């Protein structure tokens, strides 16, 4: 079996008629954590949205294969049930839907899809108990409506908590660090790191290197103009922190010594 969990080939995508992704190539293997960095508007969140299946994103060319299957054929819920999880940059507030009830319904929908028995409330509570502690999620938060009135940090912790409960094969963290203070960031990173495993791949989308001090990636990709401009190991993120993104606009990829340049050819961003 092909060891690549996710293969993105020559992906072109547009939003409201505006072309955002322009031939993006990416390959992520099980067990790996990939960071996607890049300036605002480079297409980081668009990539996350296309993989999760958000409406309004039109794929105009290219292919996304997940475990060898055409991912773009699947409905968002089928992708979730197949093991894809998106931690939202802006988690949605859902008034009137209890957080515990929601998460149990989601888990049971996925279990049902996989032909596993559904969990009753007692079994569910037992399952989540330990995971609540790691992410400092209080009972109060579980009894409230999903994300309603949550602080920025609580919302992001709640996302990672959902990930811990749903145990996806491929998790995409979309700017999970945005709006977090350092303590919340450490907590979220701890929650993420505990879920690293040989069976699970993660794509961490971030604007800043800061998060990557706590979630050390196997590969770092720099997105620019809707394609991978450079790929490297964790050190690439540090260089970006020093150099900023301005070199991308100037076309000075060479400025990043040691980085593999992305010429747009397939495999340029593939795990080495």
């Amino acid at each position, binding site marked *: 079996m092909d060891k690549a969990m996710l293969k993105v080939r020559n992906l072109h995508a547009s939003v409201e008629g505006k072309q955002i992704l322009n031939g993006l190539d990416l390959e992520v293997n099980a067990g790996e954590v990939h960071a996607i960095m890049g300036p605002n508007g480079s297409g980081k969140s668009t990539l996350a949205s296309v993989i999760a299946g958000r409406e309004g994103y039109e794929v105009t060319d290219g292919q996304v294969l997940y475990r060898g299957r055409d991912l773009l054929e699947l409905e968002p819920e089928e992708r*979730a049930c197949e093991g894809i999880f998106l931690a939202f940059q802006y988690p949605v507030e859902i008034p009137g839907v209890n957080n515990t009830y929601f998460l149990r319904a989601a888990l049971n929908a996925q279990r049902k899809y996989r032909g596993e028995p559904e969990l009753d409330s007692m079994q569910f509570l037992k399952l989540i108990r330990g995971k609540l502690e790691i992410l400092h999620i209080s009972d109060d938060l579980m009894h409230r409506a999903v994300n309603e009135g949550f602080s920025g940090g609580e919302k992001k912790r709640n996302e990672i908590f959902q990930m811990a409960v749903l145990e996806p094969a491929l998790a995409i963290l979309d700017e999970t660090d945005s709006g977090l203070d350092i303590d919340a960031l450490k907590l979220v990173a701890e929650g993420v790191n505990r879920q690293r495993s040989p069976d699970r791949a993660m794509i961490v989308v971030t604007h800043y290197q800061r998060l990557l001090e706590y979630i050390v990636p196997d590969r770092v990709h720099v997105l620019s103009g809707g394609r991978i401009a450079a790929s490297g190991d964790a050190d690439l993120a540090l260089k970006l922190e020093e150099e900023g993104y301005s070199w991308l606009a100037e076309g000075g990829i060479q400025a990043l010594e040691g980085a593999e340049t992305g010429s747009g050819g397939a495999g340029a961003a593939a795990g080495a």
Partner: protein
Amino acid sequence: MTGLTEQWSDALAAAPQEPAPAWLRELRENAVGQFRAAGLPHRKVEAWKYTPMTVFDGLRLTAAEPVPAPVADLPPPLCESSVVVDIRDGALGEVPADLPQGLTVLPLATALERFEERLKPLFEAVELRGATRAFAALNTALATQGLVVHVARDAAGGSAAGRLLLRWGLSAGAAATMGQFRLFVLLDDGARLELVEQYLGSGEAPGDGAAGLNVLCQAELGAGARLSHTRVQAETEQAVLLTSTMLEQARDSRFVYRGFDLGAGLARHELTTRLTGPGAEADIAGAWLLDGRRHVDNHVSVEHLAPGCASEQFFRGVLGGRSRGVFNGRALIQAGADGSSVRQSNANLLLSPLAEMDTKPELEIYADEVEASHGATVGQLDEAAVFYLRSRGLTDGAARRMLTAAFCRAVTDRVADPILAERIGGLLDAAMPSGEQL
């Protein structure tokens, strides 16, 4: 005069006079005259602008004593209660003799002797003039069937022990008549009553033709009295249901209303309460979930006539298919009713492009130092929330049902009894309209 007005006027003229006190016979004759003069309302009458009169075609009017039908096959009671009274096609079933202390429940004919002094002014207070009052006139002219509920001061109430359940049944038929029923609820000073009404169909397979009912209810709340009124309506699509509830609230009395409309072809509920004594409160909430071609119209009016009264109108609507909802929420704060608090909110979800909701808040304020708020919205499900739920594995349908149920929970959460709230929640889930179905 339209065909139906003519037909019903003839039926009224031919109606035999039932034995009744002279003042009531006179009132009934007057009601017949008022109906014949004004006829049925038409679409140019603002209060009936959205209600199609064609639904009444095929409903006969008769003054003949309705034949009480066996009631064994009515749907089971919605909740535990100490007293259950069945009313089928407008005919009163057996009234239990063994009642909690302080509670009196009597058929109208019997009660007219015992409570004549209190019933006469109530009968006479009902406005009968004009087309908007056509159904009140019809009811006054024809309703020989009725029920009088009286709770004496300090009677047990509020708990299941003090709960009265009215179980209504409507059966459709080709020669269906429009039943007329009169209800009186009299609460002495400090008395409490929990009234639950269920309209959950006749329990039979729906027949052909229409089924109609016109219910007029008057309630008097003495000083410090408390009436909790829960009404759950999930009739078949043949049902044409007109209900009118008129309350008078004395000092420090409290009225709590929870109404749920999940069915009927046409259901129109007029709810009017007059806060006549200082410190009176009206807490009025309801929801409708409509599918198919159902039409539900709620006309609510609260009149603040004394200082320091508080009222809230809180309604939520969900409309699918080609259904139509109407909400008219009026709050009047009369000069001198200072220190009043009035809140009104009506939010609606349209699940189908062919559904329609007409919502109209009417605030009339003539007093000082009034705290007032109102808001009315008609919108759709939040697609960002739908995607969030789907991204966690719920199907599109399940995500939409979850969000719609959450929207309605704002009303079911206001049902004080958790068991009753859960049962109503279950009925709401079962009635959840789908978006696409036409």
